[in-house]
Structures are given as structure tokens and as C-alpha cells.
């Protein structure tokens, strides 16, 4: 009150205060505080940086999720300079020094995606917004991968996909911030069809059981196209819900359908259940159209083969990678993983490990965590030494182009891990395709969205 009596009105105090704020240069900082503090999403300011691991630890693909977690922990230890260094010594070229990324130690947070797209998206959101994850990685389903990479594009965070095999991931749903090391359904079809033609002939009638979501649809489409090109007929293609447990009602119609091949477009636990039950229905012991009835699982992993046990013997499929390859990268990774966990790594573990290393390497090469620069470092990057031969991270669709394996269930396993034999390694040139083939737009890298 006394101040006002001396002539300092409230209006005058406000005017003077505002003039002082503007004059001292505080105002620009005040209005752009967010931009200065965080010119891109979760810019790491301390001496650590956090990876967000989005893993299906429960649900139909839980086994893959558990193996991915082990691989990420191993990769992070190796990036930080712990353990035997794993694949860092064989990755060529590499900018990794074994002292973290740009001198910052790597830590991680994780979330159980439950093999569900909505849960995966919610987990990724939480890890970005609450835990400050600089990069999201993981997942074993294409439904999850597509949901999470869409989110990452919106939030300006790079997504290094785990196991995802749908053509859509790097096709119609591709995103600038999403990258896939794993192969896809089209490549499975192109790789597998010649072997099927050679083994089972060109006069076959196929019946498809397909997991009813993006991956199943594109796999069915790709395998149908590849087998029909061989001369096979498609009798029927029946969709089954993801996570089904009892397939008996889908299997009984096959018995008298006129089909002589059953193609299981299933993965993870779904495939273990459908294959086991198909064998229980006597499908491998029966004859149809004067031929031995056959079962094909276009995408197969060691974990699934182990789960299916006896049922998988002799069955053909394709894999992204196998621990029994004899290149230096595979030997180094199998040794490192086996020493840490007492079992060889699965293809899910391999792709997870490689993705973590490739992101770290790209940041080192870019010299910054700024996502658009990291994206540039990954796009068109050619590397070798990771177990798949020379590999290109294609700039047009963010799909890795590399060799594909055709595998077969081992008839005489020498151990519980010796469940798949490598039949053929298809060179990458034979499984490469036009990046425009599956449509989609990557979208922009800049301006980098701000997550908060």
C-alpha cells in the first residue's frame, strides 16, 4: 500500500517487470524453453542413455520374447564394453568402441507387450514418455511392430523392430523411424518354393491355415503366389484367430478336402499347437491323391521346433538365421550367448542382438543421437559379419536385404538344440525385390517430432 501511495501503481510495476524480462533476454528462453532443453525426443543429457525393450514375455510368442530379452541384455553389455564383446569384433565396418554410445553407458527399461498390439503401443508410449527411452526395440509379432513403429514415427523415436515377418512392416505400413533386420514373407515364399517343388513335385493341392492378422495374411498371400507359380492348386485358405489353442475343428475339414499338403501360416505357440495337433490327426501318416500327405511351415524357428518335438521332423520352412551356420559372426554370437545362458540363441535373439548393435553403430557413425541423422546413417548402410553374409539396410523401405535359409526339421537330432537342419542358403540377390512392390510411404524424418 505504501508503495502505491508513493506513485508506484500496480500497472507501473507490471510494465517495469515485463520490460526488464524482455530487456534481459529471459523472454526468448522462457518461450522456447522446451526446444532448448529437448531439441529432439529424449535427448540424453547425462552420462547414460536408455533403450526401451518392448518384449512379448507372455502370450503366443512368449518364448521368442524371453530369448530376445537375453539377447538385448547381452548386446547392451557388449556395447558397454563388458563380456567378450560378442559381434562387435566381427561387424564390418564398425564405429563401436566398446565404451557405450558416444561415451554414454547404455541402460534399458522393458515392458511386457503380451503379444498384443495395443499393449505394445501403450508400453512403448510409457517407456518414451516416462523412462526417456532414446530408442524402442523388440517384439515378435508384426501386429506389434506395425503399431509401435507408427507410434515411434509420431513421437520422433527410432524403432529397431525385433522379429516381424509381414510384408507390410516394410511395405504399406513402413515408416521413416522404423527399421527391420528380419526377412519377410515374400522372401520366405521365393526361397522355399523351389525346394518344395523339388521335394514334392509340381502337382500338389495345398490347404492353408492362417493366423488371422497382418503377418498371416501376407504370408498366406506370398506362399500362395510362390506355390501356385510352381503349379500347385490352393484348395482353401482358412483363417484362425491369433492365440488359438485347439485347432481340431480347423483340422478335421482338411482330412477329406482333397488337399495333399497342409501349409501352416502360424508362428510361435500357435504353430507348435497346430503342427502337433495336425500330426495327432494322422496327417503325416496318410495319403491323398496317391501321394504322401505333407505339412509345410513357411516360417519356423528353433524354439518352435523344440516345442513341437517329434512332430517337426522332416518339415520344411525358412529361417532368418541359424546358430549352426559356420561364419565367424555366427560362431562368435553362439559362443557368447551360449556361455552366458547355456543354450544356443534363437533367430529372434539374433535379430534382437543385431538390431541393438546396428543402432549403436549408426549413432557412433552419425556422431549424434539426433534421430534424423541416425536414420541417414542406417539408410543404405552396407555391412557384414553379423551371420547373414553381406547385408544392405535398404534406404527405400528400411528392409535388410541378406541371405535367407531354407531349413528342415532334423530327423536325427544329436541334442535338444539340434532340431533344424540348414537345407540351403539362398543368396540375397535371389530374394531381393523392388522396394515399391508392397507400396507405402516412409514419411518424413524432419522436422523431428518432439515426444513431450
Amino acid at each position, binding site marked *: 500500500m505504501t508503495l502505491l501511495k508513493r506513485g508506484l501503481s500496480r500497472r507501473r510495476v507490471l510494465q517495469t517487470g515485463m520490460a526488464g524480462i524482455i530487456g534481459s533476454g529471459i523472454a526468448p528462453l522462457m518461450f522456447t524453453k522446451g526446444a532448448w532443453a529437448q531439441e529432439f525426443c529424449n535427448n540424453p543429457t547425462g552420462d547414460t542413455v536408455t533403450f526401451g525393450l518392448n518384449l512379448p514375455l507372455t502370450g503366443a510368442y512368449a518364448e521368442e520374447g524371453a530369448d530376445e530379452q537375453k539377447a538385448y541384455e547381452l548386446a547392451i553389455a557388449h556395447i558397454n564394453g563388458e563380456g567378450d564383446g560378442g559381434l562387435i569384433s566381427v561387424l564390418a565396418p564398425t564405429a563401436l568402441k566398446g565404451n557405450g554410445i558416444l561415451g554414454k553407458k547404455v541402460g534399458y527399461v522393458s515392458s511386457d507387450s503380451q503379444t498384443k498390439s495395443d499393449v505394445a503401443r501403450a508400453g512403448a508410449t510409457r517407456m518414451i514418455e516416462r523412462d526417456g527411452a532414446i530408442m524402442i526395440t523388440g517384439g515378435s509379432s508384426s501386429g506389434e511392430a506395425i503399431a509401435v513403429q507408427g507410434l515411434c514415427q509420431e513421437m520422433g523415436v527410432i524403432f529397431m523392430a525385433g522379429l516381424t515377418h509381414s510384408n507390410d512392416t516394410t511395405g504399406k505400413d513402413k515408416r521413416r523411424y522404423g527399421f527391420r533386420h528380419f526377412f519377410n514373407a515374400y522372401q520366405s515364399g521365393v526361397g522355399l518354393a523351389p525346394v518344395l517343388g523339388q521335394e514334392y513335385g509340381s502337382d500338389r493341392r495345398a490347404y492353408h491355415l492362417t493366423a488371422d492378422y497382418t503377418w498371416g495374411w501376407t504370408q498366406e498371400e506370398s506362399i500362395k503366389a510362390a506355390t501356385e507359380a510352381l503349379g500347385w492348386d490352393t484348395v482353401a485358405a482358412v483363417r484362425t484367430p491369433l492365440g488359438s489353442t*485347439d485347432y481340431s475343428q480347423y483340422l478335421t*475339414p482338411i482330412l*477329406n478336402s482333397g488337399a495333399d499338403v497342409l501349409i501352416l501360416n502360424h508362428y510361435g505357440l500357435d504353430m507348435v499347437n497346430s503342427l502337433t495337433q495336425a500330426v495327432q490327426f494322422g496327417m503325416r501318416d496318410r495319403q491323398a491323391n496317391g501321394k504322401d500327405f505333407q505339412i509345410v511351415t513357411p516360417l519356423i524357428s528353433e524354439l518352435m521346433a523344440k516345442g513341437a518335438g517329434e512332430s517337426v521332423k522332416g518339415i520344411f520352412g525358412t529361417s532368418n538365421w541359424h546358430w549352426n551356420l559356420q561364419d565367424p559372426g555366427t*560362431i562368435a554370437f553362439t559362443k557368447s550367448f551360449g*556361455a552366458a545362458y547355456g543354450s544356443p540363441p534363437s533367430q529372434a535373439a539374433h535379430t534382437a542382438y543385431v538390431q541393438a548393435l546396428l543402432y549403436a553403430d549408426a549413432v557412433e557413425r552419425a556422431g549424434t543421437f539426433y534421430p534424423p541423422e541416425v536414420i541417414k546413417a542406417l539408410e543404405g548402410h552396407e555391412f557384414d559379419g553379423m551371420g547373414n553374409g553381406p547385408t544392405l539396410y535398404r534406404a527405400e523401405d528400411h528392409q535388410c536385404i541378406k541371405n535367407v535359409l531354407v531349413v528342415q526339421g532334423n530327423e536325427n537330432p544329436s541334442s535338444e538344440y539340434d532340431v533344424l537342419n540348414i537345407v540351403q542358403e539362398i543368396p540375397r540377390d535371389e530374394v531381393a525385390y523392388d522396394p515399391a512392390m508392397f507400396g507405402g510411404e516412409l514419411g518424413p524424418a524432419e522436422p523431428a517430432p518432439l515426444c513431450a
Partner: protein
Amino acid sequence: MFEVIFLQFLNGLDKGAAYALIALGLTLVFGTLGVVNFAHGALFMLGAFCAVMFRQLLTLETVTLDPEKLSPWGAPLEIREPLVQAWFGDFGAVLVNYSVPASIIITIPIMLLVGIALERGIIKHFYKRPHAEQILVTFGLAIVAQEVIKSFFGPNPIPQPMPTDLRGAADIGAFLGMQANVITYPIWRLIYFLFSFVIIGGVFAFLQFTTFGMVVRAGMADRETVGLLGINIDRRFTIMFGLAAVVAGLAGVMYTPLLPPNYHIGMDFLVLSFVVVVVGGMGSLPGAVAAGFLLGILQSFASMTQVKALIPGIDQIIIYLVAVVILLVLPRGLFGRRGVMEA
């Protein structure tokens, strides 16, 4: 076409047998104790894990390291010797091969104890509480049981092989004098169907032809009057809860070769079983069995390619659709009694 329809019918009976077996235990508890038991699926799951535990005991091994041979990661190779075969020779091998049916021996006492402990320890305190509270507490119990199993056995399914002699499919067509290899069906599924039939028949015979069963039925009809006659009906109802737990447990044990059990297996069946009980009529044992088979058969036929071509996705909703229709036409279900859950 006859073969296709016959096979789907057989598949429906097989599915229906599983639904009926679980719904039967659920109805036993509701009919005797008046408790809506959401932990019944957990009892199915615990039974399945009795089979898992039994097999793990039978397949215990001695592990020795062979320094001469190395694994691909450079560790000495482990040489494993099964203990049971070492102790019992060929009998041990047969026991391991038949571990699933043999585990019934341990499942019956374990599930009886679990059921009685559950009823005496927790559920009896909720008899006079509203059904909503009973559902909450039993659902809570189911979650606890799931988490305990998950912490011991992990989240992933554990395959239980069926005996080698019972693998593959039986040629039912040839057995019926038809063409060979046209109507074939998995042997274990036929065994499960027959097993369900025996258990369901056994429970009905027990209730129908024994004094104990007669008293229980009298207690289900009029609990107070039976009590006034000096009969300790509570004790009999406790045993009935134990019996329901045994039925659920045995259903779980025999299902393990068809579906590798994990901690969540009971929940997968619980919702379906409740639909079966509601369609059959709350508290009606014949209703539960009839509805189980009816829904199993309808679900099987709805999965036929020809039916799905007419109405896409019908296989996913058929059970709930039929439940809605039956409850609209017969609000108490197929065999429901007046006054049950209508207070």
C-alpha cells in the same frame, strides 16, 4: 460330404466332452454350495500341473560333464542319465511313457486336499455373502493360483507327450466297415471323450445310487430340512467341493497332451464353461452336460469352410450367439430350475 459331417460331429463331441467336464464341476459347486466359483478354471490348471510335476519327478536326471566333448559355446558337454530308468529299468521307461495317465494317481488326493482346504479356509466364509463378492474372492484366488504356478514353472507352456502307443489317429471308418483312411480321428482325443464319459457317468451314479449322493441331492433341494434331520450337510458339501476339484483336476490332467499347459490354461476354459453352465441352467447337472455337448458340436460345425463362407467369423461367435438366443427363449437355460439365482 457324409465323412466331413461325421468328422465335425465327432470333433464336436470331443470338444463338448471337455466343456461338459469342466462345467460339471462348476455346477456341482453351485448346486450344492450356491457359490459362483471363478476359481474353477484354476483347479483345472492345477490338475494339469499335477501331470507336469509328476513327469518332472519321473524324468529327474543325473548330470555329469564330459570334458572331452565341448558344446558349440565351449562348455563341457553334459551327459544326462535318467534316474527312473536306472532304478526301475524297463518299468521306469513304461512309467515315463505313460506319465500323463499315471499322474491321475497323485492328482486325485492332491486335488481333493486342495478343494477341501479352499472350501474350509476361504469359501465357507462367503456362503451368505452376495454372489458378486463370491465372484470377486474366487477370481482373486484364481489369480493367486496362476501367479504361484507362473513363479514356479514360468510363463511358457510345458508339452506333455502322450504315450507312444496312443499317438496318431484311429481309422474309425474302417472300424465301422467303411472305406479305410476316410474317417480317422486322433486316438488321444477319443480317449479323452471316453474318459469324460466315464467321469460324468461316475459322478451321476455317485449322486444317484449312493446314500451319500442321496443326502447331497436332498441337501441341494432343501438344505435346512436335511440339517434338521441331524445330518451334517456342511461336511458333505465340503466333500462335494473336493469332488468338484478332483473332476476339474482330472479334466486338466488328461487335456495336457492335447494342449501344453501354462499358468493361463484354466482362464481360457473358464469363460466358455460359464457360458455352458448358464445355457444349461444354473445348478442343473444334466443341463451342464447337455449344453457342453451342444455348444461343442455347434462350434465344430461353425468352423466348417462351407459355413464360414456363408457367415464369415461365425466360428468365433457361435457359442455366444446361441447363448443369447437360448436365454431369450428360455431365460433359465435349457434345464434351469425356478428360483435359482433369481432372488
